[in-house]
């Protein structure tokens, strides 16, 4: 079976994630969109591994998952801290730093 449909799906997921990062205001939702982009990358890795015929892509997907998990931990810690300080997780409210 051709991997093209999977690649199209992965590109769609990546675009949805990227648009989400740019338009959503809640830090947690922005972060979820980033995770979506990483998982789109995983899907592309696995599909290409199938097409190319070696296991490298599948291994890469594992590593990306692990890194994503570590990122979740750090990200949640930062977002929770800022939420407790400000009682808001909106990225628009975080605006002390500008020109």
């Amino acid at each position, binding site marked *: 079976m051709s991997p093209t*449909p999977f690649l199209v799906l992965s590109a769609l997921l990546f675009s949805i994630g990227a648009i989400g990062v740019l338009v959503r205001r*809640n830090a947690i939702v922005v972060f979820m969109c980033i995770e979506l982009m990483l998982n789109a990358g995983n899907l592309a890795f696995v599909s290409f591994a199938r097409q190319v015929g070696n296991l490298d892509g599948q291994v890469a997907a594992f590593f990306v998952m692990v890194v994503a998990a570590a990122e*979740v931990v750090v990200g*949640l810690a930062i977002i929770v801290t800022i939420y*407790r300080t400000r009682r808001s997780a909106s990225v628009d409210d975080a605006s002390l730093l500008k020109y």
Partner: protein
Amino acid sequence: MNLYLPIVFLGILAAAFAVFSVVASSMLGPRRYNRAKLDSYECGIQPTPQPVGGGRFPVKYYITAMMFIVFDIEIIFLYPWAVYFDSMKTFGLIEMVLFIATVFVAYAYVWRRGGLEWE
């Protein structure tokens, strides 16, 4: 294009079903609202825009989630290792012991800092 025809068809079906159920339930269903029903659902935590100064934030939830992820994700490497263990022999064992010891360092830190206590 033939390849995508089933997907398009499925999409149309799904959209039709979604529209149908929303319209049907709004026409047929009884309307008895209460506070819990009007709340947005976020997996058991308080919905995020909270009244100023009101409501406590269950940080425990996130701390538990973070720790779950750390120990859960370890399995990703254990699984392929277990499948392939027979042919890796001692080398595989040593490498995995090293890996788990490294993860255990983080565990020791969390434990000593009281991250495992629920109060």
